[in-house]
């Protein structure tokens, strides 16, 4: 019986090659160093083994030149590794602008995923090949970590925070999804798969399920149900700030600071409205912490994000078909 097993994990994302090239570079450099030391060690140990109990080797105190050499050369090589690594890390942390956003919620012990078009999946994610996918990751309980070895990406799901990661799948197939941060008893079963499909197959798959409610539509419904609209009116006569065209823009706060209205800011404004009050408004908004679930917040954020074009006449859901 000759058991076979792979030595290199599958490479199925655009960054996988980058990570592997860096990995190989470090492997070669460290390999050369290790081999050098091992060979020297063995050679010296054999060549200079003690031949008689009276052996007295010559005195050698050290050598400044040598010390400097083997301080500076590793230092320079490691600087290269660091800079290269930092470059890859930046790339891993910068989702492209055209990425489709998939929301990921870790919960002991499952992954809840939702497509921008509203399809929900559990422990399984279907994505089209060639399309950048941005993951907005959070957790409902302990810390988890979203790990897809074939894509070389990993990001912790931390309760109370949104982390982001992204990938662009390059090869159709099915790949492991692991939780890589220990989260309790069934941590090892908090696994799933990422199914990469050809774009047209993906469209078919999307169309296949029951017509889902997109997060934007769900958010709009919630927005009405919770009577948000009484204060956040599309004209500037409300008690709260106008939300149309807000997302992605800088906001001036009562404290004098300026923040960008991103997912985290909008989310915080829903759960703890008093934390960052917009300049010119009173802190009158009650908190919705506990009244809305994690997924509902995601829907609300998606809805507010969809309110991009400030046009007082048009009903807000009109631009929500973006994907």
């Amino acid at each position, binding site marked *: 019986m000759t058991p076979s097993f792979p030595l290199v994990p599958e490479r199925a994302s655009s960054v996988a090659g980058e990570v592997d090239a860096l990995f190989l570079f470090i492997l070669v450099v460290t390999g050369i160093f290790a081999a050098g030391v091992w060979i020297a060690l063995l050679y010296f140990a054999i060549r200079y083994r003690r031949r008689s109990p009276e052996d007295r080797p010559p005195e050698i105190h050290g050598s400044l030149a040598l010390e400097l050499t083997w301080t500076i050369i590793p230092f320079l090589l490691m600087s290269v590794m660091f800079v290269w690594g930092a470059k890859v890390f930046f790339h891993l942390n910068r989702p492209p602008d055209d990425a489709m956003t998939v929301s990921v919620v870790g919960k002991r012990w499952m992954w809840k995923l939702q497509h921008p078009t509203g399809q929900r999946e559990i422990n399984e994610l279907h994505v089209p090949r060639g399309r950048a996918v941005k993951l907005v990751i959070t957790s409902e309980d302990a810390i988890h970590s979203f790990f897809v070895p074939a894509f070389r990406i990993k990001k912790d799901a931390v309760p109370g925070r949104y982390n982001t990661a992204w990938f662009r799948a390059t090869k159709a197939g099915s790949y492991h999804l692991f939780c890589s941060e220990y989260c309790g008893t069934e941590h090892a079963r908090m696994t799933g798969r990422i199914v990469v499909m050809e774009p047209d197959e993906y469209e078919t798959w999307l169309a296949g399920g029951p017509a889902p409610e997109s997060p934007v539509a769900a958010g709009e419904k919630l927005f009405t149900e919770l009577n948000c609209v009484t204060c956040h009116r599309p004209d500037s006569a409300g008690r709260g700030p106008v939300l149309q065209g807000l997302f992605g823009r800088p906001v001036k706060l009562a404290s004098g600071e300026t923040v960008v209205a991103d997912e*985290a*800011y909008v989310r915080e404004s829903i*759960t703890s409205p008093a934390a*960052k009050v917009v300049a010119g408004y009173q802190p009158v908004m009650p908190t919705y*912490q506990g009244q809305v679930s994690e997924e509902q917040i995601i829907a609300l954020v998606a809805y507010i994000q969809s309110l991009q074009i400030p046009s007082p006449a048009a009903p807000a859901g009109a631009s929500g078909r973006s994907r």
Partner: protein
Amino acid sequence: MSAPPTSTSRLAHPGGHVVSPRVYVAVFLALCVLTVVTVVVNGYDFGPFNLIVALGVAITKASLVVLYFMHARYSPKLTGVVIASAVAFFVILLFLILTDYLSRPWPLTAGG
């Protein structure tokens, strides 16, 4: 660094430096005054400098205690090294943690 102990011969008092009680009383009074200062200053708003002023006063008070009550001023250099390393490592802890918190793109959010 310190010489081997057996060769150490102390010229000062065998039990260490003797400080006059007057110095102690003066330090005590200074500490009381600074405590009043820290409360009075708190009545005014210096914006972001509130914390700096409060900490400045507290650090001054702590230094007085260390230097005089704890005799650091009259102690071997090594004592200073120990104090400095303790403070330095605390600053490392604080500073490097803050590199994360102060350069995060978003604030902590409560949720659950």
